[in-house]
Each structure stands twice: as C-alpha cells, then as structure tokens.
C-alpha cells in the first residue's frame, strides 16, 4: 500500500466511523442499537403517524379589540371635552387579509369642534391612530402602519406562546410549533403532533378561549330572556347583563342569569388551577387567585354573604353557588364530565386566554397503522430495488462492481448520518430524494466504468485507462451534480414542506456521492492496482 492510498484509506475510514456513530452511536446491546437508531434517524409524521395542523391566527380579532378599546376611551374623552357626535363605530374586517382596513368612523361632529377633536386625537393617547376627515362633520381613524405591524406581530407571538404552553401541558409527546414565515402566510402556525391520531382534543384545547369571570348574581335563573325582562319590570337593571347557563333549567330548557356587568375577578387573576375531586367523587377544577384578585374577591364575598355568585366560563354560567362566608383566594368549577375534562380546563385556566381566534386551513392525520405499513412497504421496496441494482452491477462489472456497491452503501450510510447529525426528519418525499440519490450514485459509477472500458478498448494500459476514465467522467459528474444542486436550492427557497424535504435529502446525497463515487471508488481502484507490480487485466 503506498502512502497516498493509505492516507486516502484513513480518511475514508474516519468518515465511515463518524457516519456509523451518527446513526447507531456506541451500542452495547442489540436493544440499545435499535433505540439509538430510532432516536438518531427521526421519521417524519407521514412515516411515523401523527397529526399535522396548520393554524391561521385571526389577527383581525386583536385589531378589532384594539379599535373597540379606542372607541370606549374616545367616547369618554369626547364627553369630558364636550365634543358632540352623532355616531361612532368601526368597520368589521372579516379575514386576516382585510385586517389593515380597520377603521373607526365618527360622524356628526359640529364643525366648530373640529379643532378640539384634532388636538385630542393628535395627543399621545391616540398615537396609534391617524385622523382624516371624509366630510366637514365626519371623520375616520385609521391605525398607523407601524402600530398595525407591531400589534399583529404581538398577537402572533402571544398566540404561539399560549398554544405552546397549553399543548405542552397536555403531555402528548414532543410537539413542535413553528411559524410559517412565508409572505402569503404570515400569520400561520404549523403544529406537529407525533403519535396523535385524533387531533380533536388538541384542537379543542387550543381553541378554548377559557375566559373565566366571577360575577355577582342579580337575579335568575330565568327560563328565557323575555322572562328575565318581564320579571324585572320590562327593562334590565343598569350595569347588568343576561348570561345563558350551561346548566339545564327546570324543564330541561335553557336558563338565564342576570349578572353584574363588570366581573369581580377574571381569568387574569387566576394564579393556579388543578383538577380535583369534590363531593361524591365528582371531578371539578380548583383554582387559586392571585394576591390582588384575592383581595378584591375577599372584599366582595364578605359584603355579599348569602347572595349568589356566578362562575362564568366562555360566556356561559357554569354554576351559581350561594356565598356561605368570606372566601379569600380559591374557588372551584364543578360539572366536569371526567378527569380529563377537569384537567383540560385547569390547563387552559393556568395558561391564559388567546388574544385572537384561530382557524385550521389544513389538517393531516396519519394513523399509526399506516405509518407502520408505509415503513414496512418502503423497506421491502428498498430491499428489492437495491438488490436488483447490486446484482446487476456485480454481474455487469464483476470486480469493479464490488467497488460500486461499496461506494453505494457508503453513500447511503453518510446520507443517513448527516440527516441524523442535522436533526432532520426522514419523510416520504425525503425517500424520493434518496431514490434519486441512489440513481445518480449508480450513474456516476456507470459513467466512470464505461469510460475506463472505452479507454481499455482504445488500447490504453490499465493504470492509464483508470486514470483517464476517472478524469473524464469527473467533469460530467460535476456538471450533473451541480445542475441538480442548483435546482434543489430553488426548491428549498420557494417550496413548501414536502418539497423542501426532498431538496434537503437530495443535496446531502449528492455531496456524499461526489465523495463516494469519485474519491472512495478511486481509492479502491488504486489499492487494487498497487497490489501487483504489473497489472495487465482489470475486472470490469
């Protein structure tokens, strides 16, 4: 073995060991080997089973809420400043695309007050809004672009964080939540839930607004809204609102409660919540209030002993118990169907509510049995295909075929190892990339071998033929590989998930192939040629 060949062999050995380590680690037993393999080569949802959800955050909700807040405080300020107006309302952007069109309309402001209105809006209090007049008495307020961008971004971040917390609290395994980061899908989140084959529960958890309010009960329950009005002299008392009850009324119909308009404490005051078992072993959710909330709650309960208190969740009265004594910092929500319900409610109470609604433009679920089938069928197809390739190469190229097969195997090993090291997942389109890699790896070998044969036919000596064969084929190999890498770069930059997976796998495979088909295969030839003094025949 000459020193050049030895150096090359050492390099190859190092790469091989490094690659093997990346795939199977340092296993001490067969079981450990299996588990290492599973943790290093991560399969995508399509092969392993699980749910893939795309969420669109309805950022217009947050923007509308902001506009409502502005309207509330404007009304107050206009009243204080003595500025009359006929009406003030906002438009209703229905989709994410229309978010930026948010607009508050103020109509019928006397022309004499226009200066006052302008100076009020121009104050820092309304810095987020830009005033324009549509007629001498009518005005419109638009949100400034910087404010819009900031608000939408905050909404997205906050939603992502809340959902992350909620899902992690569910304990359904390693989930990922990512932003799409695409120009036309700025407010989309991608949620991947491996092993979850019915995303229904997760969706419900994500969607629950979990708006908790504890309010004083001013009357009820009533059988209907009309009934409530009739029993209160035709009109609802000031500062009160009618809320539907989740509990069934006397004859199984709806029931309604008249509650104070401003809740005593809300979900924001909840410090902790957990499932528990109440009377007769029924599941319930117990919650603890923050210091500030507890103080308010204590003051209220002290003053209202004997009255009733409504626990309102997502706009529905869950229960309306009578206050027995002063309560400081804890409460419970009864009526959970089972432990899971109680735990799920505790979870959303702990993690807070979402700043905006969400919709699901895309949902894909692969059941675990299909994942297992796909992997099994993929392996069978792979073995059959590869055996056919290996057999043909050995029959057609004899000794040189061994080179090709070794190079091919090494290529596959490196490809898997890089996927493992990079933490990438192997998906179905990724397997497509592997197939094309195998195709191009075979092609590289065939190109080289055919070239060597040609040179041998032209009467060149074995050493010279191998040398020329490699050199000439090398240019072709570079051209074909670079072309494919160029196309992969575009696919990666502009493609969606599956297309990206394809591109990544293929690029890794191609780079590995240049190494194995050119460097490794060449080394094996050189080693063979160096073994004898005078090589006159080559098995090719």
């Amino acid at each position, binding site marked *: 073995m000459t020193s050049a060949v030895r150096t090359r062999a050492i390099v190859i050995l190092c790469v091989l060991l490094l690659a093997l380590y990346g795939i199977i680690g340092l296993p001490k037993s067969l079981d450990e080997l299996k588990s290492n393999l599973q943790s290093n080569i991560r399969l995508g949802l399509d092969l392993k*089973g699980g749910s893939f959800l795309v969420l669109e955050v309805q950022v217009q909700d947050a923007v509308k809420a902001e506009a409502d807040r502005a309207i509330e405080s404007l009304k107050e300020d206009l009243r204080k400043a003595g500025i009359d107006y006929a009406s003030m309302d906002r438009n209703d952007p229905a989709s994410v695309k229309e978010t930026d069109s948010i607009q508050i309309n103020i109509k019928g402001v006397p022309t004499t007050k226009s200066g006052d209105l302008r100076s009020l809006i121009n104050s820092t209090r309304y810095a987020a809004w830009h005033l324009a007049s549509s007629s001498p008495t009518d005005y419109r307020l638009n949100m400034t672009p910087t404010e819009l961008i900031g608000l939408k971004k905050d909404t997205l971040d906050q939603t992502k964080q809340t959902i992350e917390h909620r899902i992690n609290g569910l304990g359904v395994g390693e989930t990922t939540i990512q932003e799409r980061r695409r120009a036309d899908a700025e407010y989309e989140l991608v949620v991947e839930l491996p092993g979850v084959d*019915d995303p229904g529960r997760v*969706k419900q958890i994500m969607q629950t607004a979990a708006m908790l309010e504890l309010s004083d009960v001013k009357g009820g329950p009533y059988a209907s809204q009309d009934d409530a009005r009739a029993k209160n002299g035709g009109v609802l008392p000031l500062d009160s609102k009618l809320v539907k009850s989740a509990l069934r009324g006397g004859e199984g119909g709806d029931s309604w409660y008249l509650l104070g308009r401003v809740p005593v404490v809300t979900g924001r005051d909840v410090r902790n919540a957990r499932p528990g078992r109440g009377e007769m072993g029924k599941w319930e959710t117990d919650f603890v209030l923050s210091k500030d909330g507890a103080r308010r709650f204590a003051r209220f309960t002290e003053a209202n002993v004997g009255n009733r208190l409504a626990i309102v969740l997502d706009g529905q009265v869950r229960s309306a118990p009578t206050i027995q004594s002063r309560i400081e910092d804890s409460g419970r929500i009864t009526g959970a169907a089972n432990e*899971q319900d109680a735990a799920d409610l505790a979870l959303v109470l702990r993690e807070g509510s979402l700043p905006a609604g969400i*919709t*699901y*433009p*895309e*949902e*894909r679920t*692969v*059941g*675990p*049995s*299909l994942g*297992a*089938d*796909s992997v099994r*069928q993929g392996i*069978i*197809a792979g073995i*059959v*295909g590869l055996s*056919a*390739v290996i057999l*043909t190469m050995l*029959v*057609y190229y004899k000794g040189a075929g061994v080179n090709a097969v070794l190079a091919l195997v090494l290529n596959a090993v490196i490809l898997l190892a890089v996927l493992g090291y990079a933490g990438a997942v192997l998906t*179905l*389109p990724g397997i*497509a*990339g592997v*197939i*094309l890699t195998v*195709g*191009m790896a*075979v*092609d590289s070998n*065939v*190109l080289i071998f*055919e070239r060597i*044969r*040609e040179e041998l036919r032209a009467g060149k000596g074995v050493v010279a033929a191998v040398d020329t064969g490699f050199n000439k084929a090398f*240019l*072709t190999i570079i*051209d*074909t590989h670079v*072309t*494919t890498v*160029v*196309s992969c770069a*575009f*696919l990666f*930059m*502009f*493609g*969606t998930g*599956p*297309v990206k997976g394809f591109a990544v796998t*293929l690029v890794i495979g191609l780079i590995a192939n240049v190494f194995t088909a050119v460097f490794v295969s060449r080394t094996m030839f050189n080693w063979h040629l160096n073994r004898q003094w005078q090589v006159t025949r080559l098995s090719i």
Partner: protein
Amino acid sequence: MEIFRNTNFDFLGYKWPFIAASLVLSTAGLISLVAKGGPRYGIDFRGGTNMFVKFQDPPQIQRIRTALSRRIAGEITVQNVVGGANEALIGTELKSDKELAAARLAMTETLEATFGQPGSGKLDFNNAGRQALVDRLRDPLIRNGVSLSDAEMQELVGRLLDYRDRSRSGLVTSFGDLSTVSGVSAAVLNTLKQECYLAPFNVKSVDIVGPKAGAELRVQAIRATLLALGGMLVYIAFRFEWIYGVAAVVAVFHDTIITIGLFSIFNKEISLTVIAALLTLVGYSMNDTIVVFDRIRENLKILRREKLGSLVNKSINQTLSRTILTSGLTFLTVLALFLFGGEVLHGFSLALVIGIIIGTYSSIFIASPIVVFWQDVSERRKRRGGSPAAAASGQAPRKNPVKAVK
C-alpha cells in the same frame, strides 16, 4: 459483460418517428387536460378531505357513498385502492374554509353509523386513540378485579394498540386475537369485550385541506418548479452554450407535460407527492441530457472537422451503454417501489415509472436534435450572409460552440 460495444446507430436519422410519437403523446395529454378542465388535482391543491380506510371485507363502495351523501354536500368519491387489501379512498369536497372543522367528524360518524355499532354505547377498539381507551377501561377493569397503576394501564393499552397497528395493520377482527398480547388476562379480555366492539374498518389517514390553503400550495409548487427549471437553464447555458440550456429545459418540460398528460388520461390525481416525483423526474432527465451534452462538448474538441449531426450521433452512441444501464437500474428501483410501495407511494412511483422511460428517450430524441437543428439554422444563415469563399469551400468553419472548460 457488455451489451453494447462500438454501436453506431443513426439516432438522429430516426428522430422523426420519435418526435412524432412525442407530439402525439403530448397532444393527447393536452387534449385530455383541456377536455377535463386542467389536471385532476388532489385535495392538496384544490381543498377537500381525503380519508384512507381499511375494511375487513371488500369495501361496499356504493353503500359508503350513499351513506356519506346524506351527511355531506358536494361530490363524494369512493374508490378501491388498486392492489390494496380491502382498502378504499374516500374523498369529499370542501367549498369553504368554514366546513373544515366538521368534515372529519361527519365522515367518521357516518362510517361508524353504517358499519359500526353506534347504539351499543361501546367504544370502537379499531379506531380508538390511546387516551380514550385508557379512560374507558380504567374503572371497569377495577370493577372486574384487575388493579393496575396508571403507568401499568398506559403500558397495557400501548401494547394493545401496538398489536393492533403493527401486527394487524390497524384492524383486529376478533377479541380472541388480543389474548396473545402480553398482560392480557381473561379478566382484561372480558372487560374489553364488555366495553368495546370491533368495527370492521380502520381509518388509516385523514387529510383535510381548506380551499384557500390548496390554492396557495398549488401556486407554490408551480412557482418552485419553474424557478428550479430556470436555475438549471442558467447553469447549463453558463457551462455550455445557451442553446444547450434551452434544449435541456425543453426536453425536461416535454417529459413533465407528457407525464401530467398521461396522469390526466388515466384519471390519476396530482398530489404533493406526485409533485415530488415530477421533481425527481426533472432531476433524472436533466442528468441524462447533461451526460450526452458533455460527450458532445468533449467530442467537439477532438473531432473538429466532423459535421455536428454525425458528431452528436457518435456521442449518443458512445454514451449508449451508460444510458441504458443507468435508466434500466433506476427503472428497476422505481418499479420495485411501484409494486411493493403500497398506496401512499402509488401516485409517486407511477409518475416515476412513466417519467424514467420518457426522460431517457427525450435526451436522445428531443434535446440533441434541438441543438443540431439550431446549429444548422445558424450555419445556414451565416452562409447566406457570410463570405462567399467560406460558402464555396463547403466547409464552413464551425463556430466552436464550447467555451473553455472552467
């Protein structure tokens, strides 16, 4: 072993029958595409739901369709999976993003109502999730005298589901089979029988894509593919000459059109995985073309006096055994995938089986003739306008169409 040795086929001489065949194929495909109003997009690209269900017995297509049409508006497709074991694909339309949430529920409920035992109050073991099964079995197990900790409970259910999904492909037909699972005693088996039933089907996958998301995915896939093609054109133009880039891209385009056309004729759906297959085929065909072009470039330097037509012929002949061997081997791999890869890979491997054949011959009969044709045209034009001396000699000095190899 060698198949071809010093062959000398006149490929360019026989180009017309092949070009005619290409024209017929692509025209037929295009006619089919126009007649059917575009390709038959899968739900990835048009929105809709797709459910892959394995049945115990051959699926009753008509019964499924009738049952679903009572709950779900719009077109409902139910088809047998080719080569599948009692498997069916059920597809429904989605007109608006609002129907998304309800779609899955409506489909599973209909299947349960038609084939399951919805009135029994029992849980369908074949379609139950892990947590649902744990919740369902916990109390009854205790009542039947099997006391398990929460962790043991989870493990037992995990083993049951593993058996169902891995050993039985998702469909258990008799509770008795479950007794082979470790930890399943007679009491456990009885509890299972008492709390669950075995529906004769298993939902293997569900895809729901809103119409808006579908349209976005479509635009993106097309844009990425076109940009990738453009990128390759630029690279080849830079390495060879622009006409080579154009010829290669035309050839690849030709392969894609014919494959999409054939998919339309056979009424197969274009899904995201089929797009991945098309991309693979583009890469493969491009590779094939470049190998031939590379040989042409090399020969142009050696055989300076040879006419381009015969030079190209020679180059194709020289690379012929490589072309046949590589295509043959890739074809074998893809064929294995087509035969053994299962339903999920069906569209994917079909596209490649078609694509490899077309991709191989397009390098020889489409890409190469374009280069020769262009060279002929530009030479004739030059002769007409060029110096009479050069024209008279009959051997117009060929403009070397190759830049120095970088």
